[in-house]
C-alpha cells in the first residue's frame, strides 16, 4: 500500500518593530539578559498593555502580501496557561478574530531545495488559514540545578501564520517556508532568521493510505532551527509513521521534538493535550479598526518576488534562470538593478552577478551586503567589454582583482596596463613585423589557407603582450596580405 502525508505549518514570525508589542522597551535581539525590560513586559502588578500600532500594520501588510482578507474589525484575547516564561501567565493573542484570513502562497521552482528542483512540475498553491498577532514569551535557560529566565524577548511582537494542510512533501514544506521568508524580507516586516528564533516553525503532520479521505493521526513536530531542518524532520517523520502503519501499529497524537544532531524526532510528554486556554477578550485593549490605516499600509506594499521576476524578464530581457536567482534575494535583486540601470546590456550584468559574484561571495562566505564589488563596478566592467577596451578573458582577470581589492575596474586596467590597443599605427607596426618574420604563413595564406591568418594574428598578440584588439588586427592583416 502507498502512503501519502498531509502537512500543515504554523509559523511564528517576530516583527521588526522599534519597540515591543505592548510597552516601550526596545525590540532588540542579542542584548545582555534582562536589560530590555520594564514593569509592563515583566507583568508587574498594576501594569497595562498599550498596543504597538506598527506591529498591527506590519501584520496587515503581511496579510496583504499573502493575499489574505484583512478583517475590518479585530480584537485581542487572553490565552491563559501557566508557564514560567510567560510574565502574566496569560498571553495576549488573538482567538476568533485574527487580523488576516484566507490567503495563499504560490510555490515556485527556485524556492524548492536545489536537489529537488527538477522534479517540480506544476506550480502549487498552499492556502493560508489565518495570521494573528500576539506577544512572544521570555526565554528560559536550564542550568545544572536552577533555571534562569531572560525576559528581553518577552513582549516581542509575534505573528502566527497558519497554513492549510495543503502540503504533501518535505520539499513543499521547504519551498513554502523559503517563499514565505522571501516575502517577509521583501515586506521588511521581519529579519526572519530561523537560527535567531525570529522565524519558528511547528509542523503538523499525518500519514494516510493513498485514497483514504480521512486524515491520519496528527502529530506535531517542534524545535527545527533551519528550513532544511524542517525538511529533514518531516522526511524522517514520514518514514517513521509510514513504517509504523505498515507494521499495523497505531500512532498516538503527540508532540515530538526534532533533534538535529541525532537526525531523529523524540516524543515529548503529551500532558499538554488537556490544555484549556480559557480564551476571553482582553479587557485592557480596545478592538482594532483596521480601516483607519488600510490606505497607509497599502502604500507600503512592495513589489513581490513573482512580479519582480516577471519585470526583470520583460524589462531587462533576463533569462528565466537569472531572473529567478536574482529575485530570490531582495538585496541581490536591488544590487542587480543598480548595476543594470546605466548600461545597455543588463543581461551581461546579470551574468556577472549570478555566475561570478555569487560564486565568489559564497566561497568567501560573504553576504551580498558585504560584497567588495559594488553594482556600478560591474556596470563599468561590462562597459569596458562592450566597447572592446578589454577582452572577455581580460575581464575575468579584472573581476578577480576587483573582488580581491575592491578597486574599480578602470583603476585595475590602468594599473595593470590591460587596456586593448586599437591604435592603428602601433598595430600596423606589429603586423608588419609579424608578416616579415613569418614568410611561410604569408605564403600559405596567399595560396588559400585562410587558417594561416590565425597564426599571424597570434604573433601580433604576442608582440603586443595581449593588448592588441584581435578584431582590428584581423582587418589590418587581411588588408596587408591582399595588397
Amino acid at each position: 500500500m502507498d502512503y501519502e502525508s498531509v502537512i500543515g505549518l504554523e509559523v511564528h514570525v517576530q516583527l521588526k518593530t522599534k519597540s515591543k508589542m505592548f510597552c516601550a522597551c526596545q525590540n532588540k535581539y542579542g542584548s545582555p539578559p534582562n536589560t530590555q525590560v520594564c514593569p509592563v513586559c515583566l507583568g508587574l502588578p498594576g501594569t497595562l498593555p498599550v498596543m504597538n500600532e506598527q506591529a498591527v500594520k506590519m501584520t496587515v501588510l503581511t496579510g496583504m502580501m499573502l493575499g489574505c482578507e484583512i478583517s475590518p474589525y479585530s480584537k485581542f484575547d487572553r490565552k491563559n496557561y501557566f508557564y514560567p516564561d510567560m510574565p502574566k501567565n496569560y498571553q495576549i493573542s488573538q482567538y476568533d478574530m485574527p487580523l488576516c484570513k484566507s490567503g495563499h502562497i504560490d510555490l515556485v521552482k527556485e524556492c524548492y531545495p536545489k536537489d529537488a528542483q527538477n522534479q517540480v512540475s506544476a506550480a502549487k498553491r498552499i492556502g493560508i488559514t489565518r495570521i494573528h498577532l500576539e506577544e512572544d514569551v521570555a526565554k528560559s535557560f536550564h542550568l545544572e540545578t536552577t533555571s534562569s529566565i531572560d525576559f528581553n524577548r518577552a513582549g516581542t511582537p509575534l505573528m502566527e501564520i497558519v497554513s492549510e494542510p495543503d502540503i504533501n512533501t518535505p520539499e513543499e514544506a521547504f519551498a513554502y517556508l523559503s517563499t514565505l521568508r522571501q516575502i517577509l524580507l521583501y515586506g521588511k516586516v521581519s529579519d526572519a532568521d530561523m537560527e535567531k528564533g525570529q522565524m519558528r516553525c511547528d509542523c503538523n503532520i499525518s500519514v494516510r493510505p493513498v485514497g483514504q479521505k480521512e486524515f491520519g493521526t496528527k502529530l506535531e513536530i517542534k524545535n527545527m532551527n533551519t528550513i532544511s531542518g524542517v525538511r529533514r524532520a518531516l522526511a524522517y517523520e514520514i518514514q517513521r509513521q509510514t513504517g509504523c502503519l505498515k507494521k499495523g501499529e497505531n500512532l498516538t497524537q503527540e508532540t515530538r521534538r526534532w533533534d538535529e544532531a541525532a537526525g531523529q524526532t523524540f516524543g515529548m510528554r503529551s500532558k499538554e493535550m488537556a490544555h484549556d486556554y480559557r480564551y476571553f477578550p482582553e479587557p485592557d485593549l480596545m478592538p482594532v479598526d483596521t480601516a483607519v490605516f488600510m490606505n497607509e499600509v497599502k502604500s507600503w506594499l512592495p513589489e513581490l518576488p513573482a512580479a519582480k521576476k516577471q519585470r526583470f524578464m520583460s524589462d531587462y530581457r533576463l533569462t528565466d534562470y537569472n531572473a529567478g536567482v536574482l529575485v530570490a534575494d531582495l538585496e541581490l535583486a536591488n544590487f542587480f538593478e543598480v548595476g543594470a540601470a546605466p548600461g545597455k546590456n543588463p543581461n551581461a550584468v546579470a551574468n556577472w552577478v549570478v555566475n561570478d559574484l555569487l560564486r565568489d561571495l559564497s566561497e568567501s562566505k560573504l553576504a551580498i551586503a558585504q560584497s567588495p564589488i559594488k553594482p556600478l563596478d560591474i556596470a563599468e566592467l561590462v562597459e569596458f567589454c562592450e566597447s572592446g577596451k578589454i577582452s572577455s578573458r581580460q575581464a575575468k582577470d579584472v573581476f578577480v582583482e576587483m573582488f580581491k581589492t575592491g578597486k574599480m575596474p578602470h583603476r585595475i586596467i590602468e594599473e595593470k596596463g590591460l587596456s586593448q590597443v586599437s591604435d592603428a599605427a602601433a598595430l600596423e607596426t606589429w603586423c608588419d613585423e609579424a608578416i616579415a618574420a613569418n614568410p611561410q604563413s604569408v605564403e600559405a595564406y596567399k595560396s588559400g589557407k585562410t587558417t594561416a591568418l590565425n597564426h599571424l594574428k597570434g604573433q601580433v598578440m604576442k608582440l603586443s603582450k595581449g593588448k592588441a584588439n584581435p578584431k582590428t588586427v584581423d582587418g589590418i592583416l587581411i588588408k596587408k596580405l591582399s595588397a
Partner: protein
Amino acid sequence: MAHRLSLREAAENIRQRKLSSVELVQALHTRIRKIEPKLEAFLHDDFDLAVKQAAQRDAQPADGPLHGVPVAIKDNISSAGRPCTCASMMLKDYVAPYDATVIRKLETAGAVVFGRLNMDEFAMGSSTENSAFQKTKNPWDLARIPGGSSGGAAAAVAADECFGALGSDTGGSIRQPAAFCGCVGLKPTYGRVSRFGLVAFASSLDQIGPVTKTAYDSALLLNAISGVDPMDSSSLPQPVPDYTKYLGRDIKGLKLGLPKEYFIEGLDPRVKQVIDQAIRHFGSLGAKLVEISLPQTPHAVATYYVIATAEASSNLARYDGVRYGLRTEKPGDVLDMYFRTRAEGFGPEVKRRIILGTYVLSSGYYDAYYLRAQKVRTLIRRDFEKAFTQCDAILTPTSPTVAFKFGEKTDDPLQMYLADIYTIAVNLAGICGISVPCGFVEKPARLPVGLQILGPAFGEPIILQVAHAYEQSTPWHLEKPNL
C-alpha cells in the same frame, strides 16, 4: 486639631501659609498614632517619605490645587518605593518600582502621598475582613466592619486620620465603605481615571476614585486624577472640566429617578426610613422625583460575579512565585512552586473567586456563563441609558444595610455578595456614582447610612452638584465618630 480639616481647608491653609505641609503630615501622624491601635486602617506608615516630600513642597511656591496636602492611598495603587501589598500574603514584601498614573497626577497637583490603606485582599470583599494582615474597625462602632474593599480608606477619612484618600471600586468598593463609615465616596465613569498602576482585580470594572469628607473634596481630588492616559487604553479622551465649578448650582427642577426595583424586600427598613427622608429632602429642595425602572436589576449580582471572577482568575495568574512576591520555601519543581505559592499566598475569598472565574471560562461553560453574562451586561447598560432619558440622576440606597458586625457574614459569601446589589450594576454599566452621608440608624448603635447618587457616563458634574446641594442643606457630613 489640624487633622479635622477637610481637604479643601487643608489646601487653603497651605496656600495662605497658615500651615505648612510638614505640619499637616505631622498632625495626621499624631492622629494616626493615637487612633490606629483601635482602628487599624493603615497597613504601612510611610511617614518618613511623606515628611521629606512635604518639606520639598514647603520650599516650593504653592501653585498646585493640592499643594502640600497629604492624600492617603489604598494599598493596591502602585507608588514607587512604597509597598503595594493588596493586603495579601502574596505581596507582603513587594515594593512597587513605579508610580501609578494617579500618583503622578496627585503629585503634579502638589499633593503629598502619605499612608497605605488596608483593604480586602486584592479588593475582593465588602468588609475588609479579607485583609491578610489586620481587621480595620468601623470608627462608629469598633465591633463592626468598615465596609470594603476600601475599608481602610473610608475608616481613615471618617476618623480624621487623613484629609482624603484614593480607593478603588469594582462593584461598590468605594461607595459602600464610604456609606458605612459616613464619608463621601465617588466611583468615576469607567475610563475617566487611568487604571495604570492599579493592581487589577476585574479590568473591565475597576476604577480608582476619591474617598473624602465632603463632596467638594471629592471634586478636588477628581480634578487631579482624571483624564486620558496613554498608558491605559481603556481611559477615555473626554475633556476634564473643573468639577468644583458645578458645586453650588441650584438643583431646582432637576429630575431625580427612583428605581422601583431598588426599594423592595432585602432593604433594611431602618435604612429605608433614612433614605426615604433624604428623598423627601430633595423634594423640598425643588428637585422633581420620578419613578424609573431598571428591570435587569435582579440579574446584576450574578452577572457581576461571572465577569469579575473571570477577569480576576486571569489577572491573578501572575502571582506564581517566579518573578516577585511570595515564593514558597524549597519548591520541588515548577508545578510544586505554583501550587504551594498560590496555596500559601492567597486567602480563601481570593481562592474562591479564582476558582469560580476559572470555571466560568472553561471550555464547555464559556457560552453559558461568560458569554451570557456579557449579554446581560449590555442589557444592564441599556437599562441605565434608558433611565437617563427620563431623569438627570438616580437616587438609591448605597447598601441595603448598615455596617455589620465582624464575622456576621463571613460564613455566607452569597449574603455578602447580595449586599452589593445597589452598587454593582453601576460598574457593569460603566457609569458614575457617589455615596454621601444621609443620616443615621440609631439602634443598636448609631451608624451612618449612605445615599447613592448615580449619573450617566461622564455625568460626574451632575452627581457632584446634587451631592453638594444635599450636603449643604443637611448636617450629616459634619458628624464625627466618637473615638
